[in-house]
């Protein structure tokens, strides 16, 4: 249901208990990083005993799709898919810094409830696409910072709450890392079409035969072939079909890849 299922490479969870642990752990990591980004905001949240899960659960589980205006969601997801989970942390840190980052701002939210209300109604100017993206880029929180904090929070967790139910594999930071770790195999590249259109009877192709030579000669100058050819497609001679089909198999790989991640994302572990 939620787009975040795609991000199973960051959370990897098999039950709702372990996904809750994952979000709590990420909350602790976010809070620890906040100390560096905005000590004022960190102190305020600590003073009022505002547990990270009270404000960041929806942010992280929905990858900000319920928080930010749509234009900003698209930019953030773009960066997130490309650069990895650090983007999600950075957005959270930027919003916390902007909303709670100075004594003046904190004057209006003296209390736990007031602070949580404030974080539920983030000022539009901080979420505006151009502003937000610039802030995300400039925020000096790297993958290594997150990994380091992940390890130390994991250690703290084990000391205070015992073993985790979910043993999370290392996070993949961005598309490049995912592709490098798991290059698509030959098997992945095979198409599994759900709609199969029958190839028209050969009598029709016989009728077109005289035209075939013409189209082949013109091939170089004509626009590129339709990568998803219809059986009746005039530019594709029917006896050419099988070799061109195998060609298309390879052309279609990115699409196939995204189809597969979508279908594996259907198990909604957060619900």
């Amino acid at each position, binding site marked *: 249901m939620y787009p975040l299922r795609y991000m199973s490479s960051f959370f990897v969870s098999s039950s709702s208990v372990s996904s809750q642990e994952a979000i709590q752990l990420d909350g602790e990591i976010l809070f620890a990083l906040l100390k560096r980004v905005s000590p004022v905001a960190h102190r305020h949240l600590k003073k009022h005993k505002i547990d990270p899960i009270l404000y960041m659960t929806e942010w992280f589980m929905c990858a900000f799709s319920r928080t930010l205006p749509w234009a900003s969601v698209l930019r953030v997801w773009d960066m997130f898919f490309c650069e990895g989970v650090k983007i999600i942390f950075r957005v959270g840190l930027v919003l916390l810094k902007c909303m709670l980052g100075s004594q003046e701002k904190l004057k209006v939210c003296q209390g736990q*409830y007031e602070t949580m209300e404030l974080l539920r109604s983030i000022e539009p100017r901080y979420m505006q696409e151009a502003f937000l993206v610039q802030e995300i880029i400039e925020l000096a929180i790297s993958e290594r910072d997150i990994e380091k904090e992940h390890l130390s929070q994991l250690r703290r967790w084990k000391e205070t709450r015992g073993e985790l139910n979910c043993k999370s594999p290392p996070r993949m930071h961005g598309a490049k890392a995912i592709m490098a770790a798991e290059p698509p195999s030959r098997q992945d590249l095979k198409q599994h079409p759900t709609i199969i259109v029958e190839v028209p009877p050969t009598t029709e192709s016989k009728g077109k035969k005289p035209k075939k030579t013409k189209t082949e000669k013109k091939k170089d100058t004509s626009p590129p072939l339709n990568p998803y050819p219809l059986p009746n497609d005039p530019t594709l001679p029917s006896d050419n079909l099988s070799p061109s089909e195998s060609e298309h198999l390879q052309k279609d790989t990115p699409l196939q890849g995204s189809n597969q991640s979508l279908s594996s994302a259907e198990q909604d572990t957060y619900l």
Partner: protein
Amino acid sequence: MQKEHLFKVLVIGDLGVGKTSIIKRYVHQIFSQHYRATIGVDFALKVLHWDSQTVVRLQLWDIAGQERYGNMTRVYYREAVGALIVFDVTRASTFDAVLKWKDDLDLKVTLSNGKPVPAVLLANKSDQSREGLRSQIPKLDTFCKENGFVGWFETSAKDNTNIEAAAKCLVEHILAYEENITNNTDPDVVALPGYNNNTKERVRTRCVTCSKF
């Protein structure tokens, strides 16, 4: 002088029983057919002018229905003084979950005297059940007694049935407990709302007394 109370009240129950709808109806007087799962926790504030001397501010904590699994509820329940536990009259499984929610609540939060926080049971979506629960009333009465609910109400967020009544029932019990606590403690250390005014007056009186001597 006006007394002001601030109470944290939890609204809990299984997924899709109508917790958010009840709060929306109670606080914003709106109802929507559109379902949108709560993620984590949501909040709303309802201000009640209880009587000429009392204002009650209810912080309603809308806890996502899937949160009973795991230990996050401990964070959400902290410092709560009352709860509305909701089930859906059209789905028996949500009633079966009521006791699990009640146990989870009693396990993770208690009043300052160690007793369980007052909880009211809400049989929601009454607009969708044909005969209602009228035949079940004696059963639910004993169910509430046996399981420590202070009362139960057949509610509908859609038709705005009994939601105010259920909240009123809960607030009465919370206030009764508060008064009980106040009466049982040393009158010298009672921290009443308007405490600052009192101290000022006391200081002034003392000063006047001092200057007399």
